[in-house]
Every structure is written in C-alpha cells, then in structure tokens.
C-alpha cells in the first residue's frame, strides 16, 4: 500500500519536473520577447508613459489656464498620479444594483486589452517592435473597433440613465470618426505601397510623408482627438452635463483602468501618427531608432495636449457636422489627389 503511494508521488514529481523544464526552456529561448512584452516597450513602459502623459497634460493645461498644475507631491507634482492611483486602488468597488454584473466587471479589462494589443503592433524599430504583421494597419483598426462596442455596452450595462445617454453619444462619435481616421491612413499606405506599419515607417527614411500629405496628417490628428474623446470633441464625457458619460458608475479600480486606457489610446495614436506621417525611427542621427520614435511620439502628444487644452467643447450636432461634412470629404479628396499623382506623375515622388 505504502509502496503504491510512493510510486504515485514519484510519477507526479516527474511530470512536474518535465513541465517546469519546458517552461524554463521556453522562457530562455524567448527571453528577449518576454523582456519586450513586459518591460520595454511593454507593460511597465506603457504604464510609466501613461503616468507621464497624464502629468504632462495636467501641467500643460494648468499653465495654459494661468495656473500651476500639481506641485506638492513629488518635485514638480510628478508623484501626484501615483498618489491618486493608490487612493483609487484602496476604494471599494461598487457595482450598482441594476447593473449587469458580469459585463460590468469585464468591460474595463476588454477596453484596456484592446488598446494594449494595439500598442504591441506599433513599429518602434526592427528589433524593438513587439509584434509584426503584414497587415498591421488594418489589424490596429480592427482592434480599435472594440472601443465603441465597449462604450455602448458599458453605458447600457451600468443600469442608469446618464451612462446610457453617454454610451449612445460615444458610439455615434466613435463610429463617425472611425471612417476619416482610417481613410487618413490610406494616403501614406498608398505612398508606401504596403499596409504593414513597419514598411510604411521604413520607407520614410528620405522624406517624411507629412510633406506630401499634410492635409491627411491634420485629419488624422482631429479624428484621433475624437477617438480618444478629449476636450473639443468629448461630448460623451461631458463633465458638466452627464457627470462622466458612459463611465459614470465605474469607481475605484475600474476608474483607474478606464483612465489609463484613455491615455494609452493617446499613446497608440501618437505612435501611429509617427509611423504614418513623421518617418518613425529616422531623422535624429545620434539616437537609436527606438528613441527617435519615442521623441517624435512625445512631440505629437504635446501637440495634442495643447490642442485639447485651448479649445472648448463642441455640441453634438456640430461634432457630427465636423465629422460627416468636413472631415470625410477632405479625406476622400486627399486620397483621390494622391491616387492621381501616383498614377500619372510617379516621377514627382521619390518613393517607388
């Protein structure tokens, strides 16, 4: 009897040993990938950059509005967001009684995951990009279509009227501005001849695409400000009218996840703007391509923050007018112009 038990334990021991050894082998073989996914430019780095973006936004908003931002915690208020995060993490998570519990708890994670996987496709450089795909431009947009669905469902699953209204507004805004966002990215894809973000960013080593399609860059920035719902175009989050729109009922950790997901979307759009228009990776000769890319993303983020802090919010009908009657025709005209130039005057452009 005791001998049989010892055999059983030996079998379990050997199974465990083999499983652990395969895990260690896998970790050893893919250690660089694991480093990229977890540390830089992966999870730790994007959380750090979200904190930096929020700090930057609060300081720049303050200075533009004739006041200082946070000053007391950390040297220039740098640790303020960490103090806020600790406070939010220590709060009780309240699920409203009329909410649909499972969906309510699951949606913040879905939002964060969709944006984080999109960040994995940003072409930082040949060796530092986490994921590579032949169709990465379309793949990022496919991931971004999760966001309006999440917003609508979160508005409905919260079980009260302010989030519901905010969810409807959010869905109509996101669907509306998704079209000019995608069409603005078509022009650089035509110029580069590929829909792989890495190839698009590498074809700009001679001249950046913003020189050829500045209109496309402007429409991309406007559409991305609408997609992350920041101030001129943040009707779904209208603080004074519907408390916080579709995210009203979320408190504590969920608030933190949604807040970070919003700034990670800003990170994602800055990364895409750099890849599509600003020649990601080339330009500054003494820095490695990753750092050049990050510097350019930083500049785009500052630009977007200055835009959001100086303009006031537009009404819903003005927002839809901007989207359908101004942005969409401009992007279509831009694409038509690029197509004409490529077809009849290919010698004007130094790209093949």
């Amino acid at each position, binding site marked *: 009897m005791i001998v049989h038990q010892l055999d059983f334990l030996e079998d379990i021991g050997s199974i465990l040993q083999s499983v652990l050894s395969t895990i260690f082998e896998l970790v050893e073989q893919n250690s660089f990938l694991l480093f990229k996914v977890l540390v830089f430019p992966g999870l730790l780095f994007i959380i750090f950059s979200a904190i930096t973006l929020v700090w930057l936004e609060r300081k720049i908003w*303050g*200075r*533009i*509005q*004739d*006041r*200082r931002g946070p*000053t*007391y915690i950390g040297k220039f208020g740098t640790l303020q967001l960490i103090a806020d995060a600790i406070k939010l993490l220590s709060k009780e998570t309240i699920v409203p009684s009329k909410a649909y519990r499972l969906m309510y708890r699951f949606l913040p994670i879905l939002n964060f995951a969709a944006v984080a996987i999109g960040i994995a496709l940003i072409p930082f450089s040949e060796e530092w990009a986490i994921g590579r795909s032949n169709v990465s431009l379309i793949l990022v947009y496919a991931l971004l279509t999760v966001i309006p669905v999440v917003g609508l469902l979160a508005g409905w699953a919260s079980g009260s009227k302010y989030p519901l209204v905010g969810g409807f507004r959010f869905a109509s805004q996101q669907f509306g501005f998704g079209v000019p966002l995608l069409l603005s990215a078509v022009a650089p894809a035509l110029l580069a001849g590929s829909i792989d973000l890495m190839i698009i960013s590498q074809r700009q080593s001679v001249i950046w695409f913003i020189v050829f399609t500045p209109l496309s860059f402007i429409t991309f920035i406007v559409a991305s400000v609408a997609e992350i719902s920041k101030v001129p175009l943040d009707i779904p989050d209208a603080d004074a009218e519907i408390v916080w729109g579709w995210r009203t009922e979320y408190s504590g950790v969920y608030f933190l996840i949604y807040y970070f997901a919003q700034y990670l979307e800003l990170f994602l759009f800055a990364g895409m703007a750099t890849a599509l228009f600003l020649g990601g990776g080339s330009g500054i000769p003494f820095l490695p391509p990753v750092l050049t890319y990050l510097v350019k993303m930083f500049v785009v983020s500052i630009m977007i923050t*200055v835009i959001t*802090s*100086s*303009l006031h919010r537009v009404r819903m009908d003005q927002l839809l007018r901007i989207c359908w009657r101004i942005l969409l025709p401009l992007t279509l005209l831009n694409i038509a112009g690029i197509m004409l130039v490529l077809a009849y005057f290919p010698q004007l452009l130094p790209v093949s």
Partner: protein
Amino acid sequence: MVHKMLKIFGRVFSQTLHKPFTVMYPFEKRNVPTNHRGRHIFIQKNCTACTMCARVCPTVAIHLNREKKEISINYSRCIFCSFCVDACKFNALHSSPDYELSEYSLDNLTYSPQRLGAPRNDKVKWRGKECI
C-alpha cells in the same frame, strides 16, 4: 475659421509666458486689508467690566468675569461682526486681521483672556518648510 484658430493659439502661447496666478499656500498668502475683522485683541488693563460688549453681542459669544475684569470669547459662536469693538468705550477690544483660526478640538476655540491678549506668533512648519 483658420484666422480664428490662429488667434486662439496665439493667445494660448502668450498666456504660457506670464507668471501663473496661483498662490502657493501656506508658503505665500494673499494680502487682506488691515480693516479685516478677524479675531479680537483684548487689553486687560483698560477693561472696566461695564458689560457693554457682552450685552451687544448677537450670538452671546462673550463671557465676562466682572470681579477679575476678564473676557473670554467663544469663536465657535462669534460671527465677527465687531459690534463689541464698537461698543467698548475704553479701547479694551480691538479687531485684528488674523483669520486662520481652525483647531483640532472644540474646546480650543474658546479663547481665554491671556490668549486673547496677544496676537498669535507660533511658527508652523509643513513638509519641512516654514509657513508664513
């Protein structure tokens, strides 16, 4: 449209160049006028215990000890109207512009005559730096 945007961003740029309006309390404080009615200063040697201040106080915040000629003021009741200052003919009660009167317990809000006799001069330190 473009002209308006340029005006907005020009204004934004010029606004970042001047000093912000923020007062870094408690290391800087805004100036209050000298007539500001804050807590009182009580000069005991002028007091004759005529009880005019206690009678005119609308909230019964002043308690007077007639034998010792001493006043104690309860600042949880005082509304800083300074009727008592106007009522005193002997120049024993004055107003000072001190407005930072918060305390940790309610008993500390009743000022004794010795505490009323002198302005506050304790230096408070916050995060290692001295406050004004």
